[in-house]
């Protein structure tokens, strides 16, 4: 492990937001004003708008100033009304000078990134065997009763549910419960008023 200065994806996204808040000429389109989320950032990598992460620390991708300029440049071009395909045409392989002029990062420049330990790539990756697929192990997973006889099991959920989750899910479940009732697959309850009108 060596040590270099980098930002995490969340820090990067925040810096993009701060950069866009200054000297941001875009006005028309609400969507391009938004700070790109993690998914967007990863998609930009796939289509070459963003260099792949500068380094990794464990499973955390780390980014540097060039990434910041690339993201800000994407957003500024979008704000000018360019489609993402046109942005790709303009930015693929752009050198630092081009990026600097497109990104118009505010002065003073973004704060210096923190020094972080980074990992090196495994040697002899070409000899690595893929993991053998393992059968799922027994585990506790969150679940939630939507109505009598209808229980939602969230076996991919990373956390237990909180009160806000319950409200949101109960609200969203109304349509599903209607369908289940329509098809005779669930008993209607107060939570799921249906055309049938039974209580």
């Amino acid at each position: 492990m060596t040590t270099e200065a980098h930002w995490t994806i969340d820090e990067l996204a925040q810096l993009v937001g701060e950069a866009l808040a200054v000297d941001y000429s875009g006005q028309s389109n609400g969507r391009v004003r938004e700070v790109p989320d993690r998914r967007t950032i990863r998609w930009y990598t796939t289509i070459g708008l963003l260099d792949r992460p500068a380094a990794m620390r464990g499973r955390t991708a780390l980014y540097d100033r060039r990434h910041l300029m690339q993201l800000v440049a994407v957003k500024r071009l979008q704000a000018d009304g360019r489609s993402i395909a046109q942005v790709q045409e303009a930015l693929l392989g752009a050198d630092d000078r081009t990026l600097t002029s497109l990104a118009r990062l505010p002065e003073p420049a973004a704060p210096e990134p923190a020094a972080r330990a980074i990992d090196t790539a495994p040697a002899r990756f070409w000899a690595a065997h893929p993991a053998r697929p393992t059968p799922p192990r027994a585990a506790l997973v969150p679940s939630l009763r939507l109505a009598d006889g209808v229980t939602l099991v969230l076996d991919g959920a990373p956390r237990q549910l909180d009160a806000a989750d319950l409200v949101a899910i109960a609200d969203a479940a109304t349509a599903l419960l209607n369908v289940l009732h329509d098809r005779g697959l669930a008993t209607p309850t107060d939570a799921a008023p249906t055309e049938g009108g039974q209580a």
Partner: protein
Amino acid sequence: MIPVRHLTATELPEPDAEAGFGTLHTERGNLPLTSLDIAAEVTGPAVRTELTQEFRNPFDEPLEATYIFPLPDRAAVTALSLRADGRTVEGVLRERGQARADYQQAIAAGQRAAIVEEERPGVFTMRVGNIAPHEQVTVRVVLAGLLPFDDGEATFRFPLVVSPRYIPGTLLAGESVGAGTSPDTDAVPDASRISPPVLLPGFPNPITLSATVDIGPAGLAIGEISASLPVRTEEHGTGLRVRLNPGERANQDFILRLRLDETPGSFAVRDGIFALTLVPPTEAGIARPRDVVLVLDRSGSMGGWKMVAARRAAARIVDTLTDADSFAVLAFDHTVEWPTDLPHGLVPANDRNRFRAVEHLAGLAPRGGTEMLAPLQTAAHLLAGRSGRERVLVLVTDGQVGNEDQILQAIAPNLTDIRVHTVGIDTAVNAAFLTRLAALAGGHSELVESEDRLDVAMRAIHHRIATPLVTDLQITGGSLDADTVAPQPIPDLFPGAPLVLTGRLTGDPESVTVVGTATDGSEWRHTLTAHPSENAALGAIWARARIRDLEDRYAIGAVEASAELERRIIATSLEFGVLSRFTAFVAVDSRVVNEGGGPRQMTQPVDLPAGWTPRAPMRATAAAAPMAVSMNAGSFDIAMPLSHPASPGFAGPADEAQVLYGPRRERGQAKAKRTVAREHVQVVQVGDYSGPIPDSVREFAAREKKKLLESASLGLAERAKALVELAESIGEALPEFVTAGLGQREIVLLNTFAAGWAKRIGLERRWQDALDLLEKLIGQSAQPEQRRSFWKR
């Protein structure tokens, strides 16, 4: 496929000076790869190919370019050269770690260098480093191989793009091992080495592509050539030259099919290596009853014509079954799905069951990820222990997965006495994986790059899943080193498919005898007399086949055997000068051009394969929604929720979706108030209808409205069913509507309806919405003032 007409010299157009090989196109932007040239010579079944890649450094600082590219999976890479600034350096083949170190050292020392590495049997990485500012360098790769030959036709297939692959597994900690865009996972520890960045549709053609294939006169029936891309032919010596038309994009396989005279069996020897060609007997065999499990890939990457072709292929295979056979049909994406009207398990292939299976196939639309292992395991489990019958697994897919080794490793132990045939459907199919899987289990791989090709392939498809004519082949006598015969295990002889075996000789044989078992159980015996081979690359061709066998054993076998297999692969690779997984060609120019070292790095982005639609990105919530009841042909990727959960690059993010779907809702809207149905309504805000409604659509809508009203007085279940049927009809009719010129907005609305949106809200409301939609199409609205259109709610 395009039949090729033979032009005379006077008919030949002048080569296009603008689009020719080597022309500089400065307007192409700053991508390092400027051109690809393929020059192949076909002599009988042998082919020698030179692939030339030109890189140009558009920057003011030195550059290291990385290019992830495909090569024919059976070909042996026998040479690499690097040409820059008037000097050519030949590459040397070394153990891979050593070659990488040599390359890295040269780059650090400021020298130009190139290295080519094999990531998969069909996927390679080229790195060219310390290209001086604005300099052009040329790398050349030489390949040797044999053309596969089936049903009187030899196929020259040269892949031009590495397709996006589905990458399952959990993220690995640590730095990525490659320069691609997918992070490495435990299932695909080198995902970052097989995932080049992808150019969006509309990007100007970044490279100049050229190709010539010279075909020697031996055995060729002139005029019987077809090509997957536009070509023209001209006389060349005593043979023909096929030339790719200029201006094509490197976004699909370049395929030539050559009709050849029937090959006789032969036993060719040269420099201690032999090539044995066995021709199947022409008399028909005795068919045994079969158990067939058909596994159909309906993942998101199967969109467009591919899904149609896959359904056709699968339906045809089901139709070739007889009452004596039994079968099952499994469709998979990230889940495995059985036909609704058939029991889970093998069922007799009687007319009724076949019909139900075909009906089920007709309703499959593409969606989701490509979790291929689970359905294969299910299929193997179904077939296990059915003795006395021919057990057949047919996989229909594009093969676009990154975890090939993981799949092969996990499935191999369960394929004893099961034959696996693969039908690969794509313009840029993962041929390497599909041939590996089929070869592993004694089957055949059929690759289909277009619907036209499917028409042709269908005529022979019954051959493909037929009982083999000769099994248990063994070579006896003739100073052959039986352990070195490749491929191993020796495949069976199928109708129409001659078999080529290569291996090492221990002496100087005059003849060889091959013994096998015919379908009636009798002995099949064939003796061939040796003759000298004219193919100088025979050694390389054997070495490649041998290395492939060993590489597969490395991938499948126990980890304990790894070190010994690696040693043997390296030994064979270095002895015959053929690239492998454990070796690499490296070329180093001794001149120093970059004193400081540390060049700027860039990975070449590549086209999306032809016929692929970039998956319309949607919000995660929408992506998790159920897919179309019956969305035909998948040609409406525009409104297709896509989910490639473990492959972040596949699904675009929400804000890109707005390009297609209209304005994004404001953030900060109370999240708890948003229902699933609302979420969808938000996504399909597309404004008012855009254009005149074609008459055929109007009639369709009137018809459907009548049907709907007829069931208005029925019970809830019947009415719900009527809505589902409406969604299905719309899904089926959409392609016609597009042809008829229906506007984009209407198509999005109809497609969203067909894709199941309508089923997510209360019956009364969706009933009204359906009527609303149909009435809009008909051009009248019953109660326009009472209610806002549903898409504005």
